[in-house]
């Protein structure tokens, strides 16, 4: 028996298979960088009463500098959001199999199967059935995706209100900034808590993946990984003879090493930030 690989995407037998395109990996890298920046500069504001708030904001050079960083990260966020929407629009306009994006096993759109999967998952939790088998995207991954989609729209819009209040007050009464503050802060807190606990658990911490999964950086994982995590998608590709087209070269040792380093770095930063949240909530 070979020793268990550190990286979940490297574990098990079989050739590597592609899972994420270079474009999507780039977008996710931008999400990581901008989200960590937004949280690190926004949390001290949300929890300004916490003992760590002032040192953290001073680490960035004070409120003005942290505010500038926050806005730069917001611009990156708007950038990847619109790049993604434009990419989707382009695909919907040009791809002959465009409907696969909107519905069916390869789609991000929630479907009846996802509801069944959730129920089946709880049955498995309680020892009342087998573990559900997932398609290209599990319901957790769909939730992650739509949470970011919804989150960027909501936090982004409310953030723009707070960034340019005098402009928006030309059309809207001043109390929308009170509402925007509530929504911006609470939705961002939800995103922070969710990403740095639940998302991290789903993709890194749960025993099947522990301690790290770099599929989002290298874009590929072993056949065994795909069979474990997305069996229905794997079977479909094999049946339809599309498996050979998805075989990928193994990532270079350097790519693997840097993916692990980057993965642990963002993972660690996120955990530190969520610890600060719990610290502030408990005090």
């Amino acid at each position, binding site marked *: 028996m070979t020793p268990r690989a550190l990286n979940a995407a490297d574990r098990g037998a079989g050739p590597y298979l592609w899972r994420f395109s270079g474009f999507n990996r780039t977008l996710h890298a931008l999400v990581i960088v901008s989200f960590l920046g937004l949280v690190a500069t926004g949390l001290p504001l949300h929890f300004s009463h916490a003992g760590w708030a002032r040192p953290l*904001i001073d680490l960035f050079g004070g409120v003005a500098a942290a505010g500038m960083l926050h806005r730069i990260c917001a611009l990156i966020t708007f950038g990847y959001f619109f790049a993604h929407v434009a990419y989707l629009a382009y695909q919907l306009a040009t791809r002959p199999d465009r409907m696969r994006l909107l519905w069916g096993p390869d789609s991000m759109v929630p479907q009846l199967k996802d509801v069944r999967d959730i129920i089946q998952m709880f049955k498995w939790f309680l020892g009342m059935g087998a573990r559900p088998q997932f398609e290209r995207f599990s319901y957790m991954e769909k939730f992650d995706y739509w949470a970011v989609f919804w989150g960027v729209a909501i936090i982004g819009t409310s953030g723009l209100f707070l960034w340019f209040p005098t402009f928006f007050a030309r059309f809207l*009464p*001043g*109390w929308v900034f*009170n*509402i925007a503050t509530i*929504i911006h802060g609470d939705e961002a807190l939800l995103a922070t808590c*969710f990403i740095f*606990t639940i998302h991290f658990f789903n993709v890194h911490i749960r025993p099947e993946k522990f301690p790290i999964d770099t599929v989002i950086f290298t874009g590929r994982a072993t056949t065994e990984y795909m069979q474990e995590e997305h069996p229905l998608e794997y079977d479909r590709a094999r049946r339809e003879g599309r498996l050979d087209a998805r075989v990928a070269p193994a990532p270079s040792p350097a790519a693997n090493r840097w993916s692990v380093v980057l993965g642990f770095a963002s993972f660690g930063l996120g955990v530190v930030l969520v610890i600060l949240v719990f610290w502030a909530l408990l005090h």
Partner: protein
Amino acid sequence: MRPLRGLACLLLALGGAGSLAGQAAQVVQCARCHANRDFLLGKGATWLPDSALYVPPTILAGTVHASLRCADCHRGFEAGFPHRVSVKVVPCETCHAREGQDWTASSHAANARTAGDAPTCVTCHGSHVVLSGKDPRSPINRFSIATLCGRCHADRRIIGKYFATPANAPGSTAAQEFPKSVHGAALTRDGLVVSATCTDCHRAHKVLPASDSASSVNRANIPTTCGACHAGVTRVFNASAHGTARAAGAPDSGAWRRPVCSDCHSAHAIVRADQPQWQLGVVEECGTCHKQLYEAFLETYHGKVARLGFGLAAKCSDCHTAHNMRPASDPQSSVFAGNLAATCRQCHPGAGAQFAKYYAHPDPRARTRYPLLYWPWLLMTALLVGVMGFFAIHTGLWLVRSGVARARGEHGASKENGP
């Protein structure tokens, strides 16, 4: 006795015409003995001028008392030698009646009588060399007064004895704080003669503890005391909500005492009001009475960045003004509906009436007062608790189930689907 009297007559005769001729005749030639070191030898004198026995005739020259004769103060000594050994000096209030009355009413007088460790006239003014306060050499010169008072008020024994009670506590740090304060620094660093020193606020002679209603630093009298210099600010303050509350008889103590100058500016550690650090700190002072508004303010963007040290953030005084705070119902108020947009425009150019509908310190949890904020707040809180609650259960169960699977040696569900 007879030979001694003869000596006195001799002294008298010898001193008849001298430098003091033309002034009131110096009946007794004091200098014959008191400027004669040989004569005074062994009689307990030291040779320093102004010591008890060695008193050269020039000692009053250049002092405010230059025109006086020894016997004007040392009354009863006209008869010449021998005189009684015990010192007998005419009380200063014989001439300085008002100062004497003020000192007699002061806590210095009371302590001088009972404990003997409080200053009398000579402690501050000197005995023979009494100089005008305008003279830079005088201990009561404006630039020296803080040092003079500090001779006792920086003394730990004095501090411990008289300034240990909460009411007098500000006095315990006064000597250390004052030189660094805006008033003290203006005196010592800039040489600004108009800057306040100890006696301007506490008075020179009628020094009384703040707890005494007659004291110039009693809460009720502080606006007047500060107003002696800061007349414009005091006029505005007296017309403000805080000033009129005083006129309406709001209590001076307890949880809801009306503020006076020193509540925000402190007593001895006063700093420039345009210092961001001070401006950020004074918000807390407003919060001691306006607790709910203060806590609500801290939940707003303004309050949060203010707490994080951002000096430009709107704080209480930026919208309500520093001294002219008035209720929103007052047309002269900076937060009166008609003036609000102009107040916002101080920081937000282009802000109009719509902009001014922002709630500067709301409580989103108050449903009836802020329904517009309550429902979004409730929705967001429910979303946060709901999502995190669901996934906490989801994750917890998953962890346990994975552990069980591992213990039982279960394979992944999809193993049999392998290639």
